[in-house]
């Protein structure tokens, strides 16, 4: 038998330019091995091909007893700064608007079997991820994807990421029109475009068929499109309302309207103009201020609009701006089966529950879209093969990934529902309760993410199991809640737009780290992610299930008919909710309850050291914890002011909370600091900021600068948005103060001098 390679085998199956790109990437791997590329250059090259780092890839892991060096054979070879060559990584696979066919699903399932852990993970931006991938397997993996028409190009890095779109596009009852061809055209137009190569940061785009639902989540994207129609000269014409400068992340921003009723023929050139303005004027040095949202905020919306319009006028014409419109059909997909109604046929056991929650009646009579609810966004290779078969048999091509980490099958004829249910059920894919309270969204968290603080997946799995157990008896109002969990403040799990969101953080007790989650309440999923929740308080991970029950049971008992959770939080008041969770905020002593010192699903003693922050050791007498409680109280009062419409007071309170947190750190070293804000800021700067002790490993000095810029200048005009942002900043500043205190304690314990470069 002749020895062959995937490169030879797939030579004719891959589009030539894609094949060439992958060959080039493979060469770069070789050059890196020979020491001819720097970590920085290779790192960004790798990210732009979707090959991401993964936890422990710096070669260190805390095994529950001590932090150990993982003896990879790499021999000093790295694939980026502090990233060991042989350490496994994550491969993100771009799935534009989540659309995929059975052949693609099968190809990914095979890759998961061969190179990963038999799991395809659906992300909150409709991508698919494979974990534990060796870098040297990635070129072949990319070729095998290329052979089924998938590219990983620009899936990570400072580039245009996967373009999101409603999974119901084309079949939805509330959409203006099917956004699929537009999202598709935008994907291929911008991919690799010269004007998107010089961004300081990632750039995320989304399309939605209507303004009121959540599917596209346009309002927290850098650039977002909401479909509209209007009758012009007796003909229905297509337009988009275009949004810019939204984003979640540490401090969330709601996107603003860049332009209303933009004609369909204008969206590509306008996006190109936005890209040019962003590439030219966006921040390049400070990653933490480099997203488009900061540029829009800095320039002001009107100036940004003007610059985009100017740029648009001088763009050289490109036929691709409009050529795709010739192919925009009325309906992008064709059903495999005729539309036949359910006709009293016997129904399998479990069918009715599933039918009530997982079946959506399409605009096209007789057809349904069904949601396959995937626990934590995971589907095994075996399940994926089965699903590909089911899709081929009942719908043909049409599968999509959703931002709630599920998959949908579209164009299922109603008559086939019982058969499809049974086929799915055989493979454990007919779990009822899609998009309900048991369908919890979670980022990867400490399982695989380098930035993870607490176990978002561990907590989600725990909550899910508990909720499923009592699902039958849950109040219907609770069943409808959206729950979303992130492992840290970066909000990849989209906790800001959940009814009940959580993000991971850590607190100290008895010089040990204790996993916690911030409770974030009152976000809004509808209206494309229409409002962001606010943090109420940090609770030890172990107490989150109890907090969850307390809040939801109070809601069920207290709500008026039809009152949503978002509205109820507004009426009930954050102060009262805080009172509800207060009894759960304390950490018992280690001797009494050691389980509080480990995370859900992970019996190792909890540590922050895997993130790069030192582990706590020796004793240190700290005033900090007492003092920082004052800052937390102040931040919370600011939240109440915000709630009750006192924006000026809320803003001032948030600023004061930062001053108090800075003071708490200083008091440990300099007891007589006093109360003068100028002095506090100056001392804070020289002791903690200039020494980089206050720096976050990834966000660097971002949180410290929140204090400096507010201290230097109070805002002229204070509205709800300014106040809300200041409170977010204060909360992050307080978090950073906790982390800084932990770092100092660790360094004191190890007897070393403070590590000024941490």
């Amino acid at each position, binding site marked *: *038998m002749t*020895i*062959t*390679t*995937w490169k030879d*085998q797939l030579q004719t199956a891959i589009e030539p330019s894609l094949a060439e790109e992958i060959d080039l990437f493979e060469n770069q791997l070789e050059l890196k091995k020979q020491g001819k590329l720097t970590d920085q250059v290779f790192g960004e090259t790798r990210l732009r091909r979707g090959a991401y780092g993964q*936890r*422990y890839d710096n070669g260190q*892991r805390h*095994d*529950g*007893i001590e932090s150990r060096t*993982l*003896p*990879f*054979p790499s021999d000093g070879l790295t694939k980026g700064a502090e990233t060991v060559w*042989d350490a*496994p990584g994550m491969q993100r696979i771009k799935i534009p608007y989540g659309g995929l066919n059975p052949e693609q699903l*099968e190809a990914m399932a*095979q890759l998961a*079997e*061969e*190179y990963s*852990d*038999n*799991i395809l993970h659906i992300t909150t931006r409709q991508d698919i991820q494979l*974990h*534990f991938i*060796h870098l040297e397997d990635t070129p*072949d993996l990319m070729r095998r994807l290329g052979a089924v028409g998938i590219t990983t190009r620009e899936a990570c890095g400072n580039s245009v990421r996967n373009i999101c779109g409603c999974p119901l596009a084309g079949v939805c009852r509330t959409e203006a029109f099917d956004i699929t061809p537009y999202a598709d055209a935008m994907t291929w137009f911008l991919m690799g475009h010269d004007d998107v190569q010089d961004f300081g940061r990632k750039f995320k785009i989304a399309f939605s068929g209507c303004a009121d639902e959540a599917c596209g989540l346009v309002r927290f994207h850098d650039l977002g499109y909401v479909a509209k129609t209007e009758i012009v000269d007796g003909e229905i014409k297509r337009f988009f309302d275009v949004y810019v400068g939204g984003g979640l992340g540490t401090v969330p921003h709601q996107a603003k309207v860049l332009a209303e009723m933009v004609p369909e023929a204008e969206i590509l050139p306008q996006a190109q103009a936005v890209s040019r303005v962003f590439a030219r004027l966006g921040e390049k040095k400070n990653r933490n201020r480099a997203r488009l949202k900061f540029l829009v905020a800095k320039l002001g919306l009107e100036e940004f609009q003007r610059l985009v319009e100017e740029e648009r006028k001088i763009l050289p014409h490109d036929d691709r701006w409009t050529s795709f419109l010739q192919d925009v059909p009325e309906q992008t997909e064709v059903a495999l089966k005729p539309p036949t109604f359910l006709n009293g046929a016997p129904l399998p056991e479990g069918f009715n529950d599933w039918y009530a929650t997982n079946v959506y009646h399409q605009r096209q009579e007789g057809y349904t879209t069904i949601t396959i609810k995937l*626990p*934590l966004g*995971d*589907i*095994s290779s*075996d*399940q994926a*093969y089965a699903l590909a078969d089911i899709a081929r048999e009942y719908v043909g091509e049409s599968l999509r990934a959703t931002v709630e980490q599920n998959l949908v099958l579209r164009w299922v004829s109603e008559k086939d529902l019982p058969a499809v249910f049974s086929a799915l059920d055989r*493979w*454990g*894919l007919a779990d009822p309760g899609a998009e309900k309270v048991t369908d919890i969204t979670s980022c990867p968290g400490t*399982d695989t993410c380098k930035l993870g603080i607490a176990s978002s*997946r*561990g907590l989600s*799995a725990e909550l*899910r199991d508990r909720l499923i157990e009592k699902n039958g008896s849950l109040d219907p109002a609770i069943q409808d809640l959206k729950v979303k969990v992130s492992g840290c403040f970066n909000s990849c799990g989209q906790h800001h737009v959940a009814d009940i969101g959580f993000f991971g953080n850590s607190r100290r007790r008895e010089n040990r780290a204790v996993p916690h989650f911030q409770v974030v309440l009152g976000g809004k999923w509808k209206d494309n992610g229409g409002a962001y929740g606010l943090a109420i308080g940090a609770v030890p991970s172990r107490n989150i299930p109890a907090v969850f029950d307390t809040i939801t049971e109070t809601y069920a008992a207290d709500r008026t008919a039809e009152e949503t959770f978002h509205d109820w939080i507004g009426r009930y008041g954050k102060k009262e909710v805080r009172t509800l969770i207060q009894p759960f905020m304390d950490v018992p002593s280690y001797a009494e309850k050691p389980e509080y010192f480990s995370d859900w*699903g*992970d*019996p*190792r003693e909890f540590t922050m050291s895997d993130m790069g922050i030192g582990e706590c050791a020796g004793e240190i007498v700290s005033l900090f914890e007492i003092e920082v409680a004052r800052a937390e109280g102040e931040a919370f009062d600011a939240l109440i002011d915000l709630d009750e419409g006192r924006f000026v007071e809320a803003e001032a309170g948030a600023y004061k909370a930062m001053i108090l947190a800075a003071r708490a750190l200083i008091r440990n070293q300099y007891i007589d600091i006093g109360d003068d804000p100028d002095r506090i800021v100056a001392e804070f700067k020289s002791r903690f900021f200039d020494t980089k002790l206050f720096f976050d490993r990834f966000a660097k000095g971002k949180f410290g600068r929140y204090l400096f810029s507010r201290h230097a200048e109070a805002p002229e005009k204070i509205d709800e948005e300014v106040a809300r942002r200041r409170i977010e900043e204060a909360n992050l500043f307080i978090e950073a103060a906790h982390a800084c205190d932990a770092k100092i304690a660790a360094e004191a314990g190890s007897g070393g001098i403070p590590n000024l470069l941490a």
Partner: protein
Amino acid sequence: MFPERIQIKLFITEEINLADLVSVFHGWIQQNELDGLVLDVADYRHVPNGPGLLLMGHEGDYALDLADGRPGVTYKHKRDWPAGADTVAARLGVALARVRRAAELLKRDTGINVDPARLEIRIADRLAVPNTAESFEAIQQIVLNDPQDVFGPISAVRNVAGDDPRNALTIEVEIAPVPV
């Protein structure tokens, strides 16, 4: 026909609760009990008939896997074979020794037994060993010859992957009870 990735599974026929095994797996990492560089625990207990609980490693992964609704201990070697493992037979020997070691540890720490009468070989390397009759024939010969006598007395070898070309070649080996 020279696969880079070979997995062997030993089946478990008794009831198991994967939740109890999470700390056992972490313990094996702490105590450095297994062959090869083992990195971390990946938990997929929530996926029906899925990969279960894995110990992800550099050269290979160990798992308590639930695939096909048949729980078992698996070891999948995937790269950096030890010196001398330059025939398929030798590679099968390496994988089998490692999975047997994991089974011994499981028995020691939890009392769970594996079925001595059968094992499954899965070759998830579609380039080198596609799921064809020819591949099955070749691997079957190697197993039956068993030059290093690693399997014990083989009573049957079956292709259990069917003829679906998208599957990985999967072979079940039945082992006759050793007379005492």
